[in-house]
């Protein structure tokens, strides 16, 4: 079964700070139920949150290593984390991704199929 990578990005990582504790809990529970669903039907493979920092960017122009602090692209977007899921095809992967609460709170999901080696 092919695997798909869901890259979750959002514009401003602090846009949750005005939420009330009750609202925070509501969103946490939406994620919990989405996660529970993809774990139960076996599509969930793994997930990780990336640290809230811009990271490093490596380049070797003319054979010289150049390390710069991120962001890699000029976009204002930050990648918050990723999910790896298994799905029959893109249609099914989209179906899985569209249930992710991330989309309800101004986030963007980039969906990429993992190249199947073999």
């Amino acid at each position: 079964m092919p695997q798909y990578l869901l890259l979750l990005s959002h514009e401003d990582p602090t846009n949750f700070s005005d939420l009330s504790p009750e609202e925070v809990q509501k969103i946490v529970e939406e994620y919990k139920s989405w996660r529970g669903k993809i774990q139960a039907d076996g599509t969930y493979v793994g997930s990780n949150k990336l640290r809230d920092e811009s990271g490093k960017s490596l380049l070797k122009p003319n054979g010289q290593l150049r390390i710069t602090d991120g962001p890699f692209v000029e976009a204002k977007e930050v990648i918050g984390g990723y999910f790896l899921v298994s799905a029959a095809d893109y249609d099914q992967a989209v179906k899985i991704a569209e249930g992710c609460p991330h989309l309800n709170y101004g986030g963007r999901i980039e969906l990429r199929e993992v190249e199947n080696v073999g």
Partner: protein
Amino acid sequence: MSFAHSPSVDESVDHLFRRHAGRMVSVLTRIFGFEKLDLIEDAVQDALVTALRKWPYTGMPDNPTAWLIQVSKNRVLDHLRANKKFQTTEEDLETVSNAIAADAGEVYFSNEVSEDQLRMIFACCHPVISPDSQVALTLKTVCGFNIPEIARAFLSTDYSIAKLISRAKQRLRLHGVRLGMPLPGELKERLESVLKVLYLMFNEGYTASAGDELIRKDLCFEAIRLCESLAKHPVTMSPEVHALATLFLAQAARFSTRCDNTGELLLLSEQDRSLWDEQMMDRAMQHFRLSASGETLSDYHLEAEIAVCHTFAKNYAATDWHNILECYDALQKRRFSPVVELNRIVVLAEIEGAEKGLIELENFRQNYDLNGSYLLDLTEAHFLSETGAHAQAAESYTKALNITENRSIRRFLEKKINELKASFAS
């Protein structure tokens, strides 16, 4: 800090985050004092947002409460270390850790409010600030509501509520209010002020008004939770506290039947009593018994008895109107109020008939003014329709309709007018 001994925690505990916020803010404020309240509130909020940004990827920890405590604590410590102004020593930081651990072990996993929250309630309800500020501040710091939620419940703006709260905090700081249980000599007065805040909080939630329905219900349940905690605490338990808990629970037991499934308001006589919350009724009855244990009789006792008469009547016709009338008479003797007088007339009319009600109402109109409230016309319309004067009744309902903007009340009045019109058209 070990949580191995803690009972297992249901991950989706109702209001876990809100409870957590209230509890953490209270314990940290006891240790660091009121002057750092804003910093503490920020740190606790920060921990919640951290959870929100992490748990989607990692899943919820086995014990989310313990996780939240740990992270909130670390956030406060970070802030304190970073902020030279507070001159925090490592010793202070150690104190925080221990205090949080102790608090967590104690009552963190129950629905009850902690000892620190009780102290915080007394600080928030300090008589140096106005009753409105007391309610708003209690909801914010003790109960974990945020400003937009309080504004929604009070039909106010975020700006006004934020201003109200920041002024209240400033005033408490100015008066050097400390977190602590009142001294024995001042307990009675301070407790009265707390009970009044709970009374206002509950009524704000219970009165059918235009605010957000869900948040208003939460207000009622918070008032009940705080009141029942006061009723259990050895320092604050008193017949008066039990009376207030009775009043809240006897009313809240009828919550689910106040509207039909389309959201239309239903009169007490139209409600399906089999749907009333038996568990709350039981608790109401327990508190009612305990409220009778002393010599004192408070307004809350009388109001509680009225609520109990309504909630425990087998059906509408079986309501003990004579008992209710006695309570209203007693209330009016203690402290006259035109609104209560109107209620008293309604009860009197149940006993002596709608004609008597109309006479009393005419009397009332000549003596009192309800500041243009629709209640007077509504009551008159009700009496008129009882006596069969349908056209006049419709007229009075229309008068009431013209002076209220509350949508659910308006729908209710429109329904009554249509029913009456149908009856004299046929």
